[in-house]
């Protein structure tokens, strides 16, 4: 548009009805799904159903929080699943005393959990370092750990299953806090903190500016490289936590399986939730809603007798539809 055209455009945009729908599409979809289930699915409005769904969603959202921040800077993290496997492999090695025996079991568990998550975070930091030091594209940089990371987990356990039965550890996956599963609590806390940080803190604003226009952000004094490294580190930490939850639920750690396919689940949740894949605009709560939508669709289908494989097809169509609608809403 020419200058004359732009200067004369009325400041407030007319928003078409479809556009309005698109903007709030995620919430609308979620509500629609809930309404549908209330009408057609037995026992939907029970605490048990709520628990089941939230539990299944919790690990995806925990990873999704980190993924949302990464995507907000215009990047992507494909290594999340592998980092989950690493954290899930390391923790049992420590609290089962395979390297060093730690007498007090609570201390052992604490050390195991902290170390596992910290190591995942360190790998995340490594991703950030590759991206900022060598200017490697995020998809390729995180691809390295996607391939090698699971291998590292497998090598350290020799591909063997590590079964365990340790209540002091497994509360993170099986415990409840006032009736709410612990991982759901963790999920909610993470979502709340991250959403608030993104909106109100300097760190959050700077993340969004990097995704919005990295060159401009740098020229305005935003410490781009440092923030990117932290964001990938956070993604690693989230993956570490999610890895612990998964092995706790399963009472065993299988490096071949932990976190398999998680990267795609997390990215799908982020995309459906409304965060722009190109960065600059992100919503943590949206990721939560996106994950819930995907989960609910699956649940709705399963509860109504549709085979899981068909549910996958529906999930695929859902992702495309959601992203397409987001695109219309952006225009």
């Amino acid at each position, binding site marked *: 548009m020419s200058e004359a055209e732009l200067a004369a455009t009325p400041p407030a945009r007319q928003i078409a009805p479809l556009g309005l729908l698109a903007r709030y599409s995620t919430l609308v979809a979620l509500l629609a799904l809930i309404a549908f289930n209330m009408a057609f699915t037995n026992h939907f409005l029970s605490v048990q159903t709520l628990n089941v769904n939230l539990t299944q969603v919790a690990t995806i959202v925990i990873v999704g929080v980190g993924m949302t921040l990464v995507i907000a800077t215009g990047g992507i993290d494909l290594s999340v699943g592998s980092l989950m496997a690493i954290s899930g492999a390391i923790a049992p090695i420590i609290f089962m005393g395979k390297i060093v025996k730690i007498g007090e079991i609570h201390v052992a568990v604490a050390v195991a959990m902290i170390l596992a998550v910290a190591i995942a975070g360190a790998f995340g930091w490594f991703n950030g370092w590759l991206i900022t030091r060598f200017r490697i594209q995020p998809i390729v940089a995180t691809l390295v750990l996607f391939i090698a990371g699971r291998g590292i987990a497998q090598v350290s356990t020799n591909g063997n299953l590590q079964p365990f039965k340790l209540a002091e550890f497994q509360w993170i996956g099986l415990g409840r806090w006032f009736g709410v599963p612990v991982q759901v609590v963790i999920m909610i806390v993470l979502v709340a903190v991250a959403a608030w940080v993104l909106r109100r803190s300097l760190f959050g604003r700077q993340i969004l500016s990097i995704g919005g226009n990295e060159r401009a952000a740098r*020229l305005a*004094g935003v*410490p781009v490289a440092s923030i990117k490294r932290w964001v990938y580190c956070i993604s690693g930490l989230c993956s570490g936590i999610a890895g612990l939850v998964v092995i706790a639920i399963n009472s065993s750690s299988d490096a071949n399986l932990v976190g398999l396919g998680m990267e795609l689940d997390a990215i799908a949740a982020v995309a459906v939730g409304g965060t722009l894949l190109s960065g600059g605009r992100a919503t943590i709560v949206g990721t939560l809603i996106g994950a819930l939508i995907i989960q609910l669709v699956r649940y709705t289908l399963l509860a109504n007798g549709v085979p899981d494989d068909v549910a996958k097809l529906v999930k695929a169509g859902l992702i495309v539809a959601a992203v397409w609608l987001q695109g219309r809403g952006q225009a």
Partner: protein
Amino acid sequence: MTSPAISDTKAPLLAMRSVSKAFAGIPAVINASLEVGAGEVHALVGQNGAGKSTMIKILTGYFSRDAGEIAFDGAPFEARSPQDAQHKGISTIYQEINLVPYRSVTENICLGRESRRYGLLDWNAMHAEARALLERFKINVDVRQPLMRFNTATQQMVAIARAIGFSAKLVIMDEPTSSLDEREVAVLFEVIRQLKRDGVSVIFVSHKLDELYAVCDRVTIMRDGRTVKTANMSAISKLELVASMLGRDVAQVARSATAFGGRHGKIGEVILEARNLAAGHKVQDVSFSVRRGEITGLAGLLGAGRTETARLVFGADPMRAGSLDLDGAPLKPRGPLDAINRGIGFSSEDRKLEGIIPDMSVAENLTLALMPQLTRAGIVDEARQRTVVEKFIKRLDIKCSGPDQRIRELSGGNQQKVLLARWLAMNPKLLILDEPTRGIDVGAKAEIQKLIKELADQGLGVLMISSELEEVIEGSDRVVVLREGRNVAEFTDSGVNEANVMAAMAHGKDADPARELTP
């Protein structure tokens, strides 16, 4: 339209009559007419927003018109898209090279029109054809090399060669010389003259009036969407041209072209001392100084190294050699943040690429650099942020629906104001402005120029880069001329005039001011 001077009695190759186009009710082109004869080079001029690019886009099928007729080569003309227009004989060469840099010269010329043998591409034939087309313009390059190996001027020739290969009868050139230096411009003009000789017509859109006089036959001036004047180039003076473009009185224009109106600043002590700076390929050995209250203009042709020097001072690019002193203390910025912390602000030349964060609001863009100072315990103090933003919106008269409006919805001029405010909010000692009024309409341009003047008067040191000579001359207390990465001349007071500066830009140290370019 006043006295349309028709060059000859034959029917023109192109006739656009009474064309109108509005966007969402706002008229962009109103009852405009344009005629170009065969083998004619026709200039199309006007300020930003006058409607030139809309006219071109209507002609080449990018937009549809609301009213009017277009006739080309004797028949009514209707293009559905630029590709369609190309097939029908009208090609466009853009300011940005719209070719594929990784691909060879041959491919960029021949793709879409390839020669084949036994169903497969005949590379020998295509290379030969590409070579032949370029030879017509006396360009001799290895056509198998990727396009990006060559400088912008050559790339532009390749774009023209592609147009000719597609049998263009009319070639539209939109700001073709903006990335070319003097020598390359001369080559381009030779190419245009050759096109003329071959009977191909050219519509030449440009801001650089001197160039128009060098190569164009006739000119059409647009203002506020209308075509206000058409004349033979030889019959209209530069002042009349500018006056027509601006809608002002000739005498008024003769006095001063910018809102700077000449500088009489009160100059303080040196705030920035740059010695023997070198960086990358573009900056070889640059030394200059900026004083408080002084506007130092950095002049030079494209490619002289002005932007690179400015970025170097700001820490945006690494320094290879040389030294910088800010306010008496050495300055060695490892990145923009260091420079900002020392009190330097930098407004880059391309606000879309390096200035605005498009999806963020006016408020967020304005306070982007200031935010760490508005933060307590990691949290941004939104109340303070709002206060700052509102203060600057008022002070700079930024036209927006509110601080929360998305910056991409603002006009170029208002966006630029927000970006300036970004730095003003930091209370800098030194402000570096790279093309501060580029791509901005007349009104906003004047406002920004006035603002810069005020800032200097308040004691700020300003380093200003501008490709518009009037801006540099009327706005600077001191002009440092760069040529091929070195500073070659420096002028102050009465030495700051068009003749001196242009001579130094073109010829360097051995410049003879008497040898300037005149219409």
